[in-house]
């Protein structure tokens, strides 16, 4: 048990980095997801196609490949960014593709009458999307978005593979120094379980507050 208390600061730093990566990526993913979902339901064919290409490209290449490409590849073409920044941007864009699909399914779940009513009032496409459709769509996809949040948390671990010392990498470093794997990895696992438990709780609370009963 001493291993953990001796290296509390390493674990704490790793945990903070994991939480930061998760929250920032999630915020980015939500923005990217809503924008791409809006593109995919727009009346402009080119925008729909661009949204589809985005989702297919991002979802069908492993996140680790994107991370490696961004962290080691981009400097080759003169794009320099910090390790943490690149990781956040890549994870946000990757999860954005999944978020876009979730939001789109929410948009499709909004009754047709709502869109017709919005148009009858003279709202333009962006207005009806922003004021009528999206608020209802996002409320119906709280649970799927919660699952995406947990998936994001799991995926931040991949940043360890390109050198970000978040929780997984911190656990690995402590283990390399101390060679007491059981305690160290169990602690890291418990921390991940606690974090995703917290996400689950938050999702449940939001769901109860926001869900529309139809």
């Amino acid at each position, binding site marked *: 048990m001493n291993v953990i208390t001796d290296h509390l600061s390493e674990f704490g730093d790793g945990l903070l980095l994991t939480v930061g990566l998760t929250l920032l990526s999630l915020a980015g993913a939500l923005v990217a997801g809503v924008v791409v979902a809006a593109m*995919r339901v727009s*009346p402009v064919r080119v925008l729909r196609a661009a949204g589809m290409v985005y989702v297919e490209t991002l979802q069908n290449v492993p996140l680790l490949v994107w991370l490696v*490409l961004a962290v*080691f590849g981009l400097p080759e*073409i003169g794009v320099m960014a910090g390790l943490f920044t690149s990781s956040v941007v890549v994870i946000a864009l990757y999860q954005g593709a999944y978020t876009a699909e979730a939001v789109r399914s929410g948009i499709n779940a909004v009754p047709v009458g709502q869109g017709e009513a919005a*148009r009858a009032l003279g709202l333009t496409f962006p207005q009806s999307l922003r004021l009528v459709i999206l608020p209802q769509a996002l409320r119906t996809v709280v649970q799927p978005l919660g699952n995406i949040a947990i998936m994001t948390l799991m995926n931040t671990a991949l940043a*360890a593979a390109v050198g970000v010392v978040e929780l997984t990498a911190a656990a690995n470093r402590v283990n390399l120094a101390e060679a007491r794997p059981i305690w160290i*990895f169990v602690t890291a696992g418990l921390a991940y379980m606690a974090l995703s438990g917290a996400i689950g709780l938050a999702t449940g609370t939001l769901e109860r507050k926001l869900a529309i009963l139809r």
Partner: protein
Amino acid sequence: MSPSPTSRLLFDEPGPRARRRIRITTALTVLAGLALVALALRQFADNGQLAADRWRPFGTWPMWRYLLEGLRSTALAAVVSIALAMAAGAALALGRLSPSRWLRLPCAAYVEVVRTVPALLLVYVVLFALPRYGLDLPLFWKLVVPLSVSNAAAFAEIFRAGIRSVERGQLEAGLSLGLTRGRAMRMIVLPQAARRVLPSLVSQSAGLLKDTSLGYVVSYAELLYSGKVLANYNHLLIQTYLVIALIYLVINATLSKVARTLEARQRTRPSRAARAATGGGAGTSAGTSADAVPTARPTL
């Protein structure tokens, strides 16, 4: 995917003004896209990454033979992991739905715990923790074991949803024919469940194929790690990784298209089955089998 009819939710057949607005937006989008491409190309060109001799190696056979070798290893690791994870997942799902508490609780605990632990952490456990306790697996299994362990939980949830979506009457009919619970499960419920969750199984398998890129960490020579070795050797870093990304893209896009096709086929088939059931005068309430989506219906 083509614009589904549901996207009509947001717009009608455009009139003259809407058509003009759509044309303007189209032009702006195309311009923005071209600007992005131009910017990317300028970045590549300014850093000399567009030079022909930096791309020419990727048109040669030895290069592709090497990459295809990596792809073969990726496929091998994926297939073995999928088989192991699916078998374990099916067992876990059955255990979680079993009437015995001593089977139900451990299976539920396994699924809930493993679902919230990153696969990379499991890889590190196999890489650095197990050897200390005298279990040093061969390289291949260092990748396959953690992937199977973590994906078994996902497969278990898929199978469980499928089993729960099969009408309760199916199992009861089997029991009333004198089958044991196990045989009724195996001969009546499971075949129907497996068919219903086939699309989810395919897309989860595609996800597992993406996870094999963790071979990069294990240094098992699958596609991504092969790319790393190659890039270290020929110093064509961004070119190599772009080609690798393209290979993944083609394979996974094909797989997800298969999943979507299966899903679309399933959406039409159960309605036929339901018609046949009512036509045959089966005693069950008709229409229940029409919703093929594995919803959480309280059965078993």
